[in-house]
């Protein structure tokens, strides 16, 4: 009971980074390198994309561990959402919420427990609008394409790569920030 209560508390950034590093190091001891964008490539291969495209002619069996890891993440997401959420959700900076509200985003009054995502973009009712689909599809394509082109995503570059002091990962991180800053400051304000 007490342990559950303890796990439900919000985590600070220092501890958060520490446990993420532990996951990366644990996978190294299993003989694997932490990097989730490879699972996207593997799923494309499994779907048959390797017939015509050399990029997907890979040994998907060597990635079975990663697909299992991804399945675990899905399970962990469910466990966390069901048992481990804090009573009060993320306390988002008032300036961020104000910026979004001033630009047409209808947000929850506070940012309560389960609202990790804005209903306007991710809610089920929003799916009645074709424009929502277009926004989600645009974001997904950019995220998927960019991760493959850049040779890695958050886990592969910004955790594994930077921890291994790799210059390519630092370059990717810098330009990742440029892209993110443009999206949040200049595109997201005009989506609604």
């Amino acid at each position, binding site marked *: 009971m007490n342990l559950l209560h303890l796990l439900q508390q919000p985590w600070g*950034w*220092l501890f958060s*980074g520490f446990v*993420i590093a*532990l*996951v*990366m190091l644990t996978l*190294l*001891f299993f003989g694997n390198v932490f990097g989730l*964008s490879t699972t*996207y490539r593997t799923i*494309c291969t499994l779907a048959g*994309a390797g017939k015509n495209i*050399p990029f997907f002619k890979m040994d998907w069996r060597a990635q079975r561990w*990663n697909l*299992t*890891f*991804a399945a*675990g*993440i*899905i*399970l*962990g*997401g*469910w466990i966390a*959402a069901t048992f481990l959420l804090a009573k009060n959700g993320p306390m*988002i*900076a008032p300036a*961020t*919420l104000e910026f979004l509200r001033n630009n047409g985003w209808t947000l929850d009054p506070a940012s309560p427990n389960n609202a*990790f*995502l804005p209903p306007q*973009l991710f809610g089920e009712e929003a799916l009645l609008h074709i424009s929502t689909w277009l926004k*989600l*599809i645009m*974001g*997904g*394509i*950019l*995220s*998927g*394409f*960019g*991760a*493959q082109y850049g*040779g890695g995503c*958050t886990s592969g570059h910004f955790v594994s790569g*930077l921890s291994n*002091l790799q210059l*390519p990962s630092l370059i*990717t991180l810098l330009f990742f*920030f*440029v*892209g*993110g800053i*443009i*999206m*949040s*400051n200049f595109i*997201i304000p005009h989506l609604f």
Partner: protein
Amino acid sequence: MKYLKYLVVGSLFGIILTKTEMISWYRWQELFLFDSFRIVGIILSAVTFGAIGIAIIKKLKLNDIYGNSIQIEPKKMSRYRYPIGGFIFGLGWALVGCPGVHYTLIGQGVVSIFIVLFSALLGTFIYGALRTRLPH
């Protein structure tokens, strides 16, 4: 049984992504609007502890559980792919997040994430199809 450990560590990572609030869309906006230090702090912390761990592994020449030496193949240096790919990935990340986040949110029953996931797979496919024509 060989794969059970990945399921366990994966579950822990799904819990971690939730508890660190890395799956919060609002946190991503805070990051890129420079309204909060949190995600920058998390990345700095992860990299610091990660780098210390990898330095120890290399110094002591530690092996993995199967007795093989632990190696991280360095990413090949290249002129175009990291700036352009990183930039495009940042655009997408700020709007719909990254693979780890997608898997976590699927576990939380967010239906619209399936659209994001399929689109990300489509983006992956488009890269694979155009790969030879893109500057790397």
